[in-house]
């Protein structure tokens, strides 16, 4: 199934997915999403605020992401600093926050699987492993 674009008729949130959320996460209205075109979605997103993210902002973002999960950002600060440097260089040079421990294939869809944070909870370095880590060791299972 192909992902498509949807717009909340109340608050203009944009959703990209195979189906819209039942409940809008922003305005909490039920059944609020209408399908729209890619061009419309891009226009709405393009007119939004031009936010940016430093490596420190990203560190805070992944810390709050991990807070709700069974893993944490690796307490090894030096390792995390090296990885964040790579992630940001990859974004600058190659367009997205690609994983520093893998290489993009140049197939767009395929390479979305290595945008950090990736779906590492299914990797063999994490799933079912006591001291599991993401492939790079940016995230580790909480003790």
């Amino acid at each position, binding site marked *: 199934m192909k992902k498509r674009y949807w717009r909340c008729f109340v608050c203009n949130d944009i959703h990209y997915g195979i189906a819209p959320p039942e409940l809008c996460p922003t305005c909490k209205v039920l059944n609020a999403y209408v399908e729209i075109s890619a061009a419309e979605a891009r226009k709405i997103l393009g007119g939004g605020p031009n936010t940016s993210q430093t490596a420190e902002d990203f560190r805070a973002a992944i810390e709050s992401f991990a807070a709700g999960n069974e893993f944490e950002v690796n307490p090894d600060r030096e390792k995390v600093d090296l990885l964040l440097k790579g992630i940001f260089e990859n974004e600058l040079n190659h367009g997205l926050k690609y994983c*520093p421990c893998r290489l993009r*294939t140049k197939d767009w869809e395929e390479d979305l699987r290595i945008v950090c944070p990736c779906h590492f909870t299914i990797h063999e370095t994490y799933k079912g492993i006591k001291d599991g880590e993401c*492939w790079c060791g940016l995230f580790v299972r909480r003790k």
Partner: protein
Amino acid sequence: MANLLMFHGRECPHCKKMMPFVEKIEQETGLRFDKREVWHDEANADLMRSHREDLAPKCGNQLRVPTFFNPETKDAVCGEVEYEKLKDWALKQS
């Protein structure tokens, strides 16, 4: 002598850990690894991608760094491995 390749990334902690092992193996055995950094050098990245069919099945169906590769035998080892394991692998290639 076998022409061994090491694909690595400048900001990859596994690669950082393996680099001294590789240098030690080179000193002890006289073998040489052709070290190719893939995130800051597109020619090296393209070289690694050109071997995707041989590398991916051995590396969780992905292109991972570090990857040690013998283009002649198509044999590959990926990720952080023990010193002895990499040394045995390298010797087996020569």
